[in-house]
């Protein structure tokens, strides 16, 4: 048959079209397969990589958290010891100032435990081997009495033993027991004539030490009664120079309460080392961690990993390491306590830290498995569609022309390029195909998948973070922070007080405090440390102790003076512009006079007879920022039945989901509505109102309030 030119050309076009289509199809299939293989391989490597990364990340996070928490715990113990230190300095100072004329009150006569029954909070006297006369000791007892009782009220630890041991051998002591009517139970050895202050281990230790003007941590010793004692002591002077040793001690088991209250798991083992590597306290006192081996230095432990860790611990380092002890692997985290080389260690089962990390790795892998399955589905979709596309292409090549093919292959190329990018980890890649056909549908499907992938990654980060935080017990840090604040409030006929702090998720921030300075002077404080996190939490603890010690020590010279000195000390310790806004006041419960210093804090509200007033502010900046600021005090007479509410900006600046603030106005309104309520009711009322306002929004700042009601002296 003869073909005309047109037919020939048509045939030629048909054949070349067919060949082109076949070639195109082959390239397409090949490209698609390659893309799939690459993607499959990459997804696998990626899964492995990301899961390893997640495991490492969560372990690192957990370790970091644990180290931060151990630092915070160490500070907690340091706080207990720090208060003891502060008390010892105050008392030693006071004794040194005693002169013949300074004793006005001579009503107290120390008891003789050999003949009298002695109760908690009473002075008693042991004459020593020289049978020394109690005259000078009686002067001391009279002079120190009020101060000592105030100081002991401010300490949570019970029992507390105050002792003074003279160079003449006598001892003057006071035991503060859990209940006021508890009897002092002295061991027989203390009641004999041989019992002499100069033989006590604390006496010898302090007298032999080079440092004479600061408290020393006495190495662990057994008291005459046999229990292990922690003691802080320093010399005191009379007009002729050093005259003896004064100190305070607690059974080391008291410290364990401070430590174990916050231990997140009973299987954890915590222990305390002194600067000589002696185990002062241990929650599992066996083998190397036994506490009754005062000649054993943990740095010489037969367990090498433990000995090495002890080395770092006594060197004052913070860190974590893996040790093998008690036939198991443990994470040992440690941090220094105080200034004299003590260190707190905590052994946490290795598995406990590792398991969640592994679990996260597992989670990641299963996420990826799902993604891989999803990809496979999409790809088989792509294959089917490309087959159809191919047939369509063939037809279209024959029927229409090649531009269409170009258009088609472009969509598929875009798709396959996009897939490649995504498989390389670029999850933000969006495929833009607007062909209005199945390719566009497929691209949409792909875009949806990358979005899912992005969400997975976000979820993963969040899960990892949350898991790690749970592992490391972030809540523990907040608990510790809360545990440092006094609890229970004050209820008496003249004055009642209640306080509350709702910490935001992160530690740091606010604190409050309240304590009696003597029978009629009640001090209370509210404060807000700039910023949050562990450094702020530590600054919070430190500034609280400093302020309390300064007020205890220097209140007699005026509250403003005490705050000025506290600011100087805080400023030396704060770094990087950290500061704390403080409102602190002392209420004379006999007269209703309130003296206060406002260091850059928001003014408290005074409610009386439905009238509402903000306490006038003086011009004083926040504490801890700069030394040498002279603080000024103000005063106001409280009428009976007034209620004073101290608060932090966490209350008025609590935000709802629309970022609107709770505001002073709302607080004023609820306060007026609450009327004549008790401190507890007032705080609860405001708290509930804030919670209602905030709704589901995340709490971003600590919410802290102290309410004081002055009832006045009635009748």
């Amino acid at each position, binding site marked *: 048959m003869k073909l005309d030119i047109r037919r020939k050309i048509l045939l030629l076009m048909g054949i070349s079209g067919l060949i082109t289509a076949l070639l195109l199809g082959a390239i397409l299939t090949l490209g698609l397969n390659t893309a799939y293989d690459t993607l499959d391989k990459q997804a696998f490597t990626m899964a492995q990589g990301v899961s390893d990364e997640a495991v490492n990340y969560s372990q690192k996070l957990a370790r970091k958290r644990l180290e931060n928490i151990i630092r915070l715990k160490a500070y907690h113990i340091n706080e207990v010891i720090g208060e003891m230190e502060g008390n010892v300095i105050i008392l030693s100072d006071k004794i040194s100032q005693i002169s013949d004329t300074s004793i006005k009150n001579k009503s107290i006569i120390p008891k003789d435990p050999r003949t009298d029954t002695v109760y908690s909070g009473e002075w008693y006297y042991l004459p020593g081997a020289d049978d020394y006369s109690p005259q000078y000791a009686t002067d001391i007892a009279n002079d120190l009495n009020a101060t000592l009782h105030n100081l002991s009220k401010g300490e949570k630890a019970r029992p507390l033993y105050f002792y003074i041991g003279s160079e003449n051998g006598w001892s003057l002591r006071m035991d503060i027991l859990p209940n006021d009517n508890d009897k002092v139970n002295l061991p027989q050895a203390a009641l004999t004539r041989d019992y002499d202050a100069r033989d006590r281990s604390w006496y010898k230790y302090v007298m032999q030490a080079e440092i004479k003007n600061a408290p020393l941590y006495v190495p662990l010793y057994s008291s005459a009664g046999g229990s292990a004692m922690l003691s802080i002591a320093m010399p005191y002077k009379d007009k002729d120079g050093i005259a003896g040793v004064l100190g305070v001690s607690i059974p080391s088991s008291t410290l364990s309460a401070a430590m174990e209250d916050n231990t997140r798991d009973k299987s954890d083992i915590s222990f305390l080392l002194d600067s000589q590597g002696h185990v002062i306290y241990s929650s599992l006192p066996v083998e190397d961690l036994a506490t009754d081996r005062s000649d054993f230095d943990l740095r010489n432990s037969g367990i090498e990993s433990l000995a090495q860790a002890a080395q770092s611990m006594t060197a004052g380092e913070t860190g974590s390491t893996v040790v093998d002890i008690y036939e198991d692997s443990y994470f040992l985290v440690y941090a220094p306590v105080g200034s004299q080389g003590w260190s707190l260690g905590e052994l946490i089962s290795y598995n406990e830290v590792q398991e969640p990390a592994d679990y996260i790795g597992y989670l990641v892998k299963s996420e990826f498995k799902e993604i891989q399955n999803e990809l496979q589905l999409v790809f088989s979709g792509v294959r089917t569609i490309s087959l159809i596309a191919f047939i369509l292409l063939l037809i279209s090549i024959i029927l229409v022309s090649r531009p269409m093919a170009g258009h088609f292959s472009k969509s598929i190329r875009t798709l396959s390029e996009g897939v490649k990018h995504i498989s390389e980890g670029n999850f933000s890649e969006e495929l833009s195909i607007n062909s209005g056909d199945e390719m566009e549908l497929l691209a949409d499907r792909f875009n949806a998948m990358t979005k899912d992938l992005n969400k997975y990654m976000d979820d993963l980060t969040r899960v990892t973070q949350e898991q790690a935080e749970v592992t490391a017990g972030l809540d523990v840090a907040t608990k510790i922070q809360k545990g440092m604040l006094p609890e229970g409030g004050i209820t008496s006929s003249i004055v009642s007080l209640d306080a509350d702090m709702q910490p935001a998720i992160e530690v740091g921030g606010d604190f409050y405090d309240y304590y009696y300075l003597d029978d009629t002077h009640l001090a209370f404080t509210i404060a807000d440390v*700039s910023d949050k996190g562990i450094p702020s939490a530590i600054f919070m603890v430190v500034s609280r102790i400093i302020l309390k010690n300064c007020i205890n020590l220097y209140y007699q010279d005026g509250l403003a003076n005490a705050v000025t000195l506290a600011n100087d000390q805080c400023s030396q310790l704060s770094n990087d*512009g950290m500061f704390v806004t403080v409102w602190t006041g002392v209420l004379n419960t006999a007269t209703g006079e309130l003296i206060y210093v406002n260091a850059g804090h928001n003014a408290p509200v005074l409610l009386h007879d439905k009238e509402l007033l903000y306490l006038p502010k003086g*011009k*004083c*900046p926040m504490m801890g920022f700069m030394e040498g600021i002279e603080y000024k005090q103000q005063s106001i007479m409280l009428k009976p039945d007034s209620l004073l509410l101290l608060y932090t*900006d966490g209350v008025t600046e609590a935000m709802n989901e629309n970022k609107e603030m709770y505001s002073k106005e709302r607080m004023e309104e609820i306060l007026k509505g609450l009327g004549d309520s008790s401190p507890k009711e007032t705080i609860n009322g405001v708290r509930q109102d804030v919670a209602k306002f905030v709704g589901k929004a995340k709490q971003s700042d600590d919410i802290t309030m102290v309410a004081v009601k002055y009832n006045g002296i009635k009748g």
Partner: protein
Amino acid sequence: MEDINISVEEKKGWSVLLLQGRLDRVNAEYVGSKAEETMAAAAKMAADLSGLEYISSAGIRVLLRLAKKSKADGKEFVICGADGFVKEILEDSNMDMLVTMINSVEQLP
């Protein structure tokens, strides 16, 4: 950065750092480093807070740190234009005792 806009302009020999939006915990570090950069290059710096609607204690810390740094480096630093809530907060903490504060950037000497 989220919630905050920072720009710097020169006025009467002062480098004026204009902050607009919210200065809070989330962006305090970022603002701090930007501001310190500006301060490093300037002899006199002013922070214009007229466009600021919220400041948290972390934000105050940024300003205090700048004040401390300017003092250490022998430079001048003023805060201007604080208004409304921000002014209230700064007054609450008696910032004016630590840093010079003026009403508006127009009052710069």
